[in-house]
């Protein structure tokens, strides 16, 4: 091969490498973009509203004459829905994972897993419809005081929605536990239940906890189902049968209307989104930390 041909080949290779790197770097630019956009308007928001009022105020009334900017009602709405969803999804998801990994015959597993994947793929607007037209009427049969828009129905559908997140990630963790551990326990006379709950689950605990955290983080970021089912009333209440508003629902409600750019109401959008972003990011980082810090290494 002549020297020039070799040179042009190296040049081409180098150029390709640069293009590929640029594409990989796009993701980092996206993060920077998100942080920059949120930060710019949030800083400007906090120059008008004190951060203490934002974090401790119990009334969220940005559009009223007498404006109040306490984020607690929105935050408590999000936390309430996520808690309710967690109560449903964490045990059900984990037990699903144990069943699929430890008990189910391969054929049963092959049938059930795609169904759970479909459950994960149903758009959230569909879950919203389901909550509003099926779950809420059902709740009202048993508890007539339930409002048309209520946190309970939203919690239930969000719970169903995140079952696959818990079950598929937990199942991966359970299946990564080597069979030698199971066989060792059987050899000592343990039953299948004892092997599953006292050997396999503790060995996979980091992965299971990481899946729990990720699922809750998803529930907090969930938007459409909550907007449709839980309503748009920023209520600081512990009653799940009442209408509430989550952070995500507020963001959607604001962007449906035509809020003029630069107003304080427009800036609330970014302050709330920043709060949401920090919470979910924190939980994602926490789940990765749990995974790497407490992982049992198996060959």
């Amino acid at each position, binding site marked *: 091969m002549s020297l020039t041909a070799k040179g042009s080949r190296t040049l*081409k290779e180098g150029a390709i*490498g640069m293009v*590929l*790197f640029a*594409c990989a770097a796009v*993701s980092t630019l996206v*993060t920077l*973009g*998100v942080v920059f*956009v*949120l930060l710019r308007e949030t800083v400007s928001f906090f120059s008008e509203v004190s951060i203490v009022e934002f974090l401790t105020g119990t009334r969220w009334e940005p559009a009223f004459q007498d404006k109040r900017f306490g984020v607690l009602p929105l935050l408590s709405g999000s936390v309430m829905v996520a808690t309710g969803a967690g109560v449903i999804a964490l045990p*059900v998801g984990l*037990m*699903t994972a144990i069943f699929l990994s*430890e*008990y*189910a015959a391969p054929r049963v597993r092959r049938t*059930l897993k795609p*169904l*759970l*994947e*479909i*459950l994960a*793929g*149903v*758009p*959230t*607007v*569909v*879950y*919203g*419809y*389901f909550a509003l*037209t*099926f779950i809420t009427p059902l709740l009202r049969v048993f508890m007539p005081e339930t409002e048309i828009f209520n946190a309970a129905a939203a919690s239930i559908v969000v719970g169903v929605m995140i*079952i696959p997140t818990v*079950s598929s990630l937990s199942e991966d963790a359970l299946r990564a536990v080597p069979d030698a551990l199971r066989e060792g326990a059987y050899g000592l006379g343990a039953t*299948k*239940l*004892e092997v599953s*709950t006292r050997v396999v689950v503790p060995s996979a605990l980091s992965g299971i906890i990481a899946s729990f955290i*990720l699922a809750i983080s*998803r529930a907090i*970021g969930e*938007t*459409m189902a909550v*907007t*449709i089912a839980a309503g748009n009333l920023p209520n600081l209440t512990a009653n799940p049968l009442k209408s509430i508003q989550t952070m*995500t629902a507020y*963001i*959607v409600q604001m*962007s*449906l209307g035509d809020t003029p*750019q630069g107003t304080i109401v427009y800036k609330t959008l970014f302050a709330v*989104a920043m709060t*949401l*972003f920090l919470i*979910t990011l924190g939980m*994602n980082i926490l789940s*990765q930390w749990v995974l790497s810090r407490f992982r049992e290494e198996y060959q």
Partner: protein
Amino acid sequence: MSETRPLGSGESLFYRRRRLKGTIFQWLCGMATLVGVFALGILLIDVLVDGLGRMSWSFLTSFASRFPERAGVKAALAGSAWILGLTAAISFPISVAAAIYLEEYAPRSWVTRIIQTNIANLAGVPSVVYGILGLALFVRTLGLGRSVISGALTLSLLIMPVIIMAAQEAIRAVPRTIREAAYGLGATRWQVVSHQVLPMALPGVLTGTILALSRAVGETAPLIMVGAVGFLAFTPKGLGDQFTVLPLQIYNWIQRPQDDFRELAAAGIIVLLALLLTMNAIAIILRNRAQVRR
């Protein structure tokens, strides 16, 4: 003789109780698994019962209307098709290139580690936050307005981390011996990637891409934020046109109190689910073909 019995009579009660506990636990776990399956079943039945009556050819070929009997999803279907095509065209090449870089080119350095961690974190950012980025960046700063292209760019950012991670996994699954054989024959790195690694990883990459795209098709919130509208009487003709998509049209109908519009919403959901199911079926077929070959 009593020695030939595996257990003493006192122990056998103990063992029976342990076995009974095991059986109960197994049943509980099995029932927990069915919770998800049942929920899916009830959801589908609920939607079908409400919506099938509204399904007709004219539902697919009519625009949204104030009169429920004349309303249809034409604008929404066209918008979803535009969004699907554009999002695929934007996100697929960039994501695959990024995955190739991270798996085949990237040195083990802190830059690589940051990019990798960042991608994992981006996958967990709620979609409304992407909507805000789209609003500030594409709609306002770049001046693209409330257009199809703004929506497609926003959704591309949203699904890129998902495609990148799926593509990385597919590329990682290509055996190292293939690469070494190609290098041994004198191939350059790009030749190895483009002639050997990519063709082998392609089914896996495509599966991940289709699944990510089906997520984009079902997204509502970020598109509300970049200004897609719920009521439109024309289909987009170009990148700068206003648009609506199926989930948004459904949301618009859900919000109306009249039962007629609820039925329209259910019919819209049937169309949306049919579209997603088709995409998922394609993804599963691709995945099975990839598994057979390996």
